[in-house]
């Protein structure tokens, strides 16, 4: 496990560095956005510009900026937002819980439905139901998230009016009780989470189905059948249990996908998560915010990876042995 953690730390450093370099490779710079000739408060003044650059440290050599950035990342000081003039750390802690709520619930739901549905389809491989589900999954997993979200928004938000159209909770509301607050948050969560679930579900389903079909063809499944075990035991205890291994291995990648999906969905539903923060920060070339957001996303994805790895060593005795060595 130690070697694995070391490799994660190295990965983290690479991510940190890329995270520093990539925004700076984008055309334009933060001050150009601020000093937009189209904007009303446009003042082109070399002195003002120089003062601003000095204030945000953009005039220093790249290597020095990198050093400061690394130091900040380690100590948790992520700097000030250029656009909003707020500490990046505070911005992040305000937005992160919403994103975690959205991606977590979508990922959980998609996994549950994907596992059960995929297992059932694999068990009846070749049947009409299997072929239908597989076809639908291929379509939904390739449909743009934006499109899925719009459809849900139009049908359940606008037409039927069952769910609110936007936001993470009702603005300016005061709740008398925790259940009331929860109900409000859940109500706002349903459509975005459903959208994300739908966009993840196709892949989850296909992953489970195809892996389980392969496992059903393994020798040990034939032996299990020859042993006269009941179908339920064959399906769940042997086939699905083994399918969990590739499934969990893919879960980390799914977490990354979920967060990417969240960027679009949060914009569409004006959901107050990190997605919107990124969207706006990239538009404004707001380096510290971009860096902070991506850093956090990277940490979340890496943690998900580490967790999936750990979970797999618990699930697969063959890996457990390698790790203890």
């Amino acid at each position, binding site marked *: 496990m130690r070697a694995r953690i070391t490799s994660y730390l190295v990965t983290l450093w690479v991510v940190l560095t890329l995270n520093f370099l990539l925004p700076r490779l984008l055309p334009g710079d933060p001050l150009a956005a601020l000093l937009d000739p189209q904007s009303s408060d446009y003042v082109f003044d070399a002195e003002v510009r120089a003062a601003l650059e000095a204030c945000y440290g953009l005039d220093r050599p790249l290597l020095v900026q990198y050093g400061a950035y690394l130091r900040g990342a380690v100590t948790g000081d992520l700097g000030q937002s250029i656009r909003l003039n707020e500490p990046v750390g505070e911005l992040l802690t305000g937005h992160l819980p919403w994103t975690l709520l959205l991606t977590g619930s979508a990922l959980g739901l998609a996994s549950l439905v994907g596992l059960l549905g995929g297992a059932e389809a694999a068990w009846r491989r070749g049947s009409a139901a299997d072929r239908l589900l597989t076809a639908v999954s291929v379509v939904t997993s390739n449909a743009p998230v934006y499109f899925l979200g719009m459809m849900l928004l139009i049908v359940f938000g606008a037409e039927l009016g069952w769910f609110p159209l936007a936001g993470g909770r009702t603005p300016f509301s005061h709740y008398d009780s925790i259940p009331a607050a929860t109900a409000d948050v859940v109500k706002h969560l349903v459509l975005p989470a459903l959208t994300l679930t739908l966009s993840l579900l196709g892949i989850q389903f296909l992953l489970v189905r195809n892996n389980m079909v392969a496992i059903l063809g393994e020798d040990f499944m034939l032996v299990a*059948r*020859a*042993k*006269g*075990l*009941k179908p339920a035991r064959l399906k769940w205890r042997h086939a699905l249990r083994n399918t969990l291994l590739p499934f969990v291995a893919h879960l980390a990648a799914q977490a990354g996908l979920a967060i990417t999906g969240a960027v679009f969905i949060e914009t569409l539903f004006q959901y107050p998560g990190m997605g919107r923060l990124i969207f706006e920060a990239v538009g404004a070339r707001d380096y510290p915010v971009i860096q902070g957001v991506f850093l956090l996303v990277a940490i979340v994805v890496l943690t998900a990876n580490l967790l999936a790895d750990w979970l797999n060593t618990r699930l697969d005795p063959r890996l457990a042995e390698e790790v203890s060595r």
Partner: protein
Amino acid sequence: MTEPLLSVQDLHVHFLAEPADGRGAGAVRAVDGVSFDLAAGQALAIVGETGSGKTSIGRALLGLHPPGSTWGSIRLAGLELVGSAEAEWRPLRWRRIAMAVQSAGTAFDPVYRIGEQIAEPMREHLGLPADEAATRAGALARRVGLEARHLRAYPHQLSGGEKQRAMLAMALSCEPEVLIVDEPTSGQDVLSRAQLLDLLRQVRVETGLCLILISHDLAAAAQVAERVAVLYAGKLVEVGTAREVLEQPRHPYTWGLLNAYPNMTTARDLRGIRGHSPDPSDPPSGCRFHPRCTQAVDLCRQAKPPLVEIGGRLIACHLGGLQTLLQASDLRKAFSSNGKGEVVTAVRGVSLEVYEGEVVALVGETGSGKTTLGRLLVGLLDADSGHVVFEGQDLAALNGRERKALRRRIQFVAQDPFDAISPRLTVAAIVREPLDVQRFGSVPERAKKVRDALRAVGLPAEPPFLERRAHELSGGQLQRVAIARALVLDPKMIVADEPVSMLDASEQAKVINLLKEVQSERGMGLLLVSHDLALVRKVADRILVMRQGQVVEGGPASRVVTRPQHEYTHALLQAAPALGWEVGQV
């Protein structure tokens, strides 16, 4: 006779070919009409090459094939199983018929401990609580030679042999009435192979279950089962007692299989049966073995031979089994040496047979009468008494023309090629001579035959070599030319008299291997006359030992070399330095 415990009648297993493979609908006929009965407590071995359908039979007995692919009849104590629904099969599986599968390496679920997997069917079928099932699994494991630590291990932590044992323990867990064991010894070293076979024998004795052993190893099969059924391309070709089938195989395929199988006791070089196993989705017409059979006749291509009883066993062959190519009975020959009436008896009452496609070595010291016997067998000499029958014709009854025609069927390669071949003839002329004598075909046809024969013995077939004269050739080349000359008429049998005695050791091995290769490719009979037991045992199926004009010992090469019965054979073996230790070991 009481009703057998297990009765299989006309069992078929056909797999639908993958629809993805554009060629379409040719079904794989893995099992094509197999019948056998097994009484309680009996053991049957099903033997055949890879792909012959052995495993498919085993799986059919557990109803594991996709619905619709199995038909015929399988009756277990009177209960018809074919056509049962999955739910009807389930209580039978493992409880009444269990199978130790072929691929024990991948037969265990990788995420559960071995002990748990052995206990699983006991919980399922016998309703045992977990702790009792675990205790029983422990007892079973000890019985097959595993320890408690093996039960706690995960499958990937066991060796191949341990998994095979665990598989056996698992198969025995519900005390089935019928146990199928599929290739229990594949991939094992000699020692664990012997131990496993021992174990199977013990299990039989202790439990009295009905055993079906599936194997490609005839010898292993015969150690465990009293009856052997030989399977070829989904059909049974020979069924008999293990002893009979092993010691005197009667079907040409069984015979080939036995010769092809590596035998630990001889250093014999192996060559499989010529050709290769048929494509199960498009089996040959008639007898499925005919493309590889050395004795096939037209009927074999046209009609399927039924499995019928011949001499106490079942054989599927139009000719009733392996044919005798050459049979000699009580041959005698004496020479009056110098006109003074002094008589030397060279051959005194020799009887022998050579079967279709067989290599027989005739071994003996100088002057034991080997060459004389060889010449008698091909009709170059007339016997004083006794008969030589070749392909059903008594040589003594042939007239001159028939005798000439006989040369096309049986050829003689003389001891010393320098002696037998005129040194001034060219290679082409030497090899062509038999064709000229027989007035075979046109001149270009003869030239082609000559080239083919030369190629078959690994010589160049181009003009510069064809024009070389015999005296310009090396010993090895000349010996090959002599063999090519014998081959040029496509004979059914060759008698080769000391074909390599003039060559150095490495050439000897090469030429002897060449002879064997040509023989098995063309499906000829070969009688190899030699004084060198160490050399011929590498290629011979059977060895006859000759001394002072008599055959003093004969038998399968492996037996003669490892357990010689006659003291003279012993002496010959001792004289062959490379063999000394093998004999000492026995």
